[in-house]
């Protein structure tokens, strides 16, 4: 029997992971409310991707718990975690180059549907990111921004409860970024929870309701964008003068 749904869709408690001499994740705890958009920021090497890899089952934490919708996912294989409703996009493009755009998205949809229905759901996901016209093109031929959108569509096709977006904005034009931001907000409004790793400060501050700041594997701050940007620990560890100036404009 699974416990009744609580307010948090994802509960991470005292998560830790060490690699040799490096404490990559150090006693990290946080909760994600349903339908929220939470950002994860921190300097390079702060442990953001390692955190995501533990949430998705690619790395096993040394200690701590991860509850997805009340059920523990620690120790489960990545594909099982995906079917439970947690999916992530890849930072370095991981599109299936030999397959068409539609086939790429269909793989995601197969997580919950047989092949016939999966194709339809995949086409719907493609429409949402504006890739529907390209559905029969080999994915290897897409431009980088198009591949980023395909990552998103594939992940969407798995009908996730929680989506982990790993730097999707990096290769997009400002116009495309605005579109993705709008889409992410729509998703959140419809009930999907999003955890977003981003380096692009403006996006993070406008998109996210809450921000988690990591440094050296540790959660050094957590709060609203304005709280975080004025937190001295964060400013000291991460935000240089230039980024602070950006914030002043945002």
């Amino acid at each position, binding site marked *: 029997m699974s416990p009744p749904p609580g307010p948090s869709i994802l509960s991470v408690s005292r998560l830790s992971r060490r690699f040799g001499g490096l404490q990559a994740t150090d006693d990290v705890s946080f909760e994600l409310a349903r339908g929220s958009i939470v950002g994860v920021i921190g300097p390079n090497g702060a442990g953001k991707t390692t955190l995501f890899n533990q949430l998705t089952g690619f790395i096993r934490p040394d200690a701590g718990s991860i509850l997805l919708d009340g059920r523990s996912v620690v120790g489960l294989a990545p*594909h099982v975690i995906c079917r439970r409703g947690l999916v992530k996009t890849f930072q370095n493009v991981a599109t299936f180059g030999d397959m068409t755009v539609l086939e*790429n998205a269909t*793989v*995601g949809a*197969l997580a919950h549907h047989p092949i016939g229905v999966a194709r339809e759901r995949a086409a719907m996901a493609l429409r949402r990111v504006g890739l529907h016209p390209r559905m029969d093109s080999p994915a290897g031929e897409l431009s980088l921004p198009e591949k980023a959108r395909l990552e998103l569509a594939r992940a969407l096709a798995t009908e996730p409860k929680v989506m982990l977006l790993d730097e999707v904005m990096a290769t997009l034009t400002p116009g495309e970024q605005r579109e993705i931001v709008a889409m992410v907000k729509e998703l959140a409004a419809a009930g999907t929870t999003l955890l977003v790793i981003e380096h692009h400060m403006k996006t993070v501050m406008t998109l996210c309701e809450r921000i988690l700041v990591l440094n050296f594997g540790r959660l050094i701050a957590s709060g609203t964008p304005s709280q975080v940007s004025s937190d001295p620990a964060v400013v000291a560890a991460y935000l240089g003068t230039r980024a602070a100036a950006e914030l002043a404009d945002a």
Partner: protein
Amino acid sequence: MSPPHGHPISRVVLAILALALVVLPWLLPAQGYVLRVACLVLLFAAMSQAWNIAAGLSGQISLGHAGFFGAGAYTSTLLLIHFNLSPWLGLVFAGFVGAALAALISLPTMKLKGHYFALATLAFGEAMRVIANSWGSLTGGPVGISVPFAEPGFVLMQFQSLRPYYYIMLVALAVTCITFHRIRTSALGLRLRALKNHADAAASLGVDTAVAKLLASTASGALIAMLGVLYAQFQFFFDPDTAFSLAGVSIRVALIAIIGGVGTVAGPLVGALLILPIEEATNAYLSSHAAGLSQMVFGAILIAVVVLQPRGLLHLWKTVRR
């Protein structure tokens, strides 16, 4: 990369080819050399297609398929010798044996990639050969085993003329091609191709990579084991070094698919059509000069193809067409 649908000219060409294939045996002498080669072309094309199901779709290059092939040949022949079981039923048992072996070898090699996987399967094939050579009481040892000669007839899958063999091989080829195509266009096929491209991304999208690989491997092993039965019935005699041969079976079926184009339905067909006749021709001309010369030519062709177009001749043809 499926053959072009609906294009009128290619439909006609395909139909003509199909007709030619069906009519061929009647145009050739019933016991002749050419028909014999034709049967082997069909058989190896089918074997290569079976290999293609696992290797072509999932990208896991196996160099040990001889292990399943020989096991199938021995299974049905031993059942025939000891229990008078018809090879047609022997096919079923061979299929099970091939599937079981494939599943067995799939488990320890599940996490291996590329070269490591090829190595492990190579060791498996060689291990089977050594076992067959040593377990004389079961297999007859290095001396080999003969299919007991009886009244030619359908029931015992033995014929004097080569023509029935030809049609059996043709049907086998059709079955393996259809199986390949059905798997490729199914959910399993999509999952396999996804994991071939990027295994982690596939896993994070919900693909159980272990199960997918296991299924492909099992289907592949079962099919090639069944083809081993056809081989046994066709040749009437085989020994461990031939049935479990690394170069003659494992490498050859992989080579055929690779030269023709891995992962496509047409690849094994193109490959077999090219390689076997050429091999026969070079054997005929060159072996009078020195042993091994024709095989050497093969090796050289393989190297040339790999270096010039790693994706195989079919891909070469596609790029030329553009």
